[in-house]
């Protein structure tokens, strides 16, 4: 019981620290980066559910991000839907596309699935470039409305500054984290991992693997779409680049370096790499070049070569080294 209490206390401490962060650091540029890191965290967590827990190598994740961003923006701009519902709408529409992309996954795996998903994202990106009436082509949509103010009696909140978005994104990250935790630590999650580890074995114990694949594609896409919606209303500019291969590659690099198939890995990866790359940007004058992505590639290779479970695996190994009492797994953010 005391262990549980300790755990709770730690969680409360982390949440409290996150809540007062914008009050302590008020620099807008820094907060901008933190908000973007939060948006990426949702991307990495959702990709991790798909690739890490159910073994479906989706290399078109940026498509869901872009669909969410465009949908949310267009719902607000063309139909005047409140951005708050737009976020949800973006997620739902992305989820629908995720469901569609799930179908090829029923028959394909490995490189075949990887290329099909890339193709899916590329086709959608070209649609976004060419459907000028709707998307304004490669210029992108600009002037996307801000999130509308919330009023509850006398208390109210408006969304002008990074600080305000920080809280929205924080809430979204916590919500996503909570959902992912629940998904992965339930009968649902065990079934997904079963199908990842051995599809035939999973079918032999009655798991309808096709339905699970469709479900997990849909769910994962929903969250990625929501991240896209947040991105749209935060940056107020959505271009076809949101669907480019590089968004997917950033997402997967962060996840892999943090630790694929772990709860804490995607968060760790997204936050650390976002901060790291900003720090590197400040060093750009010193190096006279942008070595950020070079480092990404290098780290990704090193991760797969030397630390299969990413930073989470390293932390876990260190912990076990200290206590020399390992339960075998479940490190990071797992609750017991």
């Amino acid at each position, binding site marked *: 019981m005391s262990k549980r209490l300790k755990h709770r206390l730690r969680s409360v401490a982390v949440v409290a620290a996150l809540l007062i962060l914008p009050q302590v650091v008020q620099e807008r540029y820094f907060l901008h980066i933190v908000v973007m890191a939060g948006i990426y965290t949702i991307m990495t967590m959702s990709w991790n559910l798909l690739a890490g827990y159910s073994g479906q190598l989706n290399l078109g994740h940026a498509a869901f991000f872009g669909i969410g961003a465009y949908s949310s923006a267009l719902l607000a701009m063309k139909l005047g839907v409140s951005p708050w519902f737009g976020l949800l709408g973006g997620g739902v529409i992305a989820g629908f596309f995720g469901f569609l992309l799930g179908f090829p996954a029923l028959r394909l795996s490995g490189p075949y699935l990887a290329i099909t998903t890339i193709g899916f994202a590329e086709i959608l990106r070209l649609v976004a470039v060419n459907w000028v009436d709707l998307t304004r082509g490669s210029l992108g949509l600009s002037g996307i409305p801000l999130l509308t103010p919330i009023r509850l009696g006398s208390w109210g909140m408006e969304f002008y500054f990074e600080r305000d978005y920080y809280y929205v994104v924080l809430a979204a990250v916590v919500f996503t984290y909570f959902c992912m935790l629940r998904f992965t630590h339930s009968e649902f999650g065990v079934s997904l991992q079963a199908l990842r580890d051995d599809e035939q074995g999973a079918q032999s*114990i009655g798991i*309808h693997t096709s339905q699970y694949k469709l479900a997990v594609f849909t769910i994962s896409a929903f969250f990625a779409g929501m991240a896209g919606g947040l991105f749209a209303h935060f940056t107020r500019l959505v271009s076809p680049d949101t669907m480019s291969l590089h968004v997917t590659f950033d997402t997967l690099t962060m996840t892999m370096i943090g630790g694929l198939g772990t709860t804490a890995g995607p968060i760790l990866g997204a936050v650390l790499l976002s901060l790291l790359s900003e720090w590197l940007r400040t060093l750009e004058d010193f190096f006279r070049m942008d070595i950020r992505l070079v480092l990404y590639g290098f780290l990704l290779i090193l991760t797969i070569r030397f630390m299969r479970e990413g930073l989470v695996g390293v932390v876990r190994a260190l912990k076990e080294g200290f206590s020399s009492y390992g339960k075998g797994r479940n490190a990071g953010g797992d609750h017991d």
Partner: protein
Amino acid sequence: MAKAGTPVAIMTEILKIENLTKYFGGLCAVDSVSFSLDEKVIMGLIGPNGAGKTTLVNMISGAIPPNHGRILFNGTDIAGHKAHAINNRGIARTFQVVRIFSKLTALENVMAGLVDRRQKGPWRLAFASLVGGFGKQSQNPENRAAAEGLLELVGIGGYRDELAENLPYALTKRLEIARALATRPKLLLLDEPSSGLNPAELVDQIALIREINKQGITILIIEHVMKVIMDISDRLVVIHYGKKIADGKPEAVYTDPNVVEAYLGGESHAAR
């Protein structure tokens, strides 16, 4: 699930195979095999390497569809049904080369089998995981206790929190049996449960199979280790080149000239 025919005698037929046939390319791996299996019996399926035994089990469990023939399980034809659907009807299996979930713990492997999949699809499970109370769903007390019980039954209770990939080979075979049992089967198909086990482990394995049978589960077992098969089978079916060549009590089958011929070889069939 319709009950088969009318329950005349004490023995009811749980599985009936009729003219089951499977081709791979031009090769006829299983050639019009028929047999039936009564409830609560242990039936051995033997035959030389490459005779088509695993193919037969693969068809019964739905891993591959047959080309011809019927598979009646409790009176329903399940030939060509998908593997998961067949499992939901009450047939579980193990594999010649173990197919455990390597990144899950032993306990989680079994719990994956315990989920009541007849009632709950992925959407329902996903939704339930979100709205359920705090704490881990996968560790709800009832399921957990049942899973622990199954691990105890197969004798690996001490390894419940170990990742399946870290288990010694002999124990992964047992884990697979526990996982199959978790789906509450009426018929259990065991594909070479003793391969790669040493003599001591073999004895334990026989005891385990008997124990499972005592709980009222019908067993169809493919086995190469003769000691095991002669010890535990109530009945033997022998397959050779995809055809059934003998069927009956182990002692009778054992001395059947056809069977001796198939195994020891010598003069070719053509000569006989």
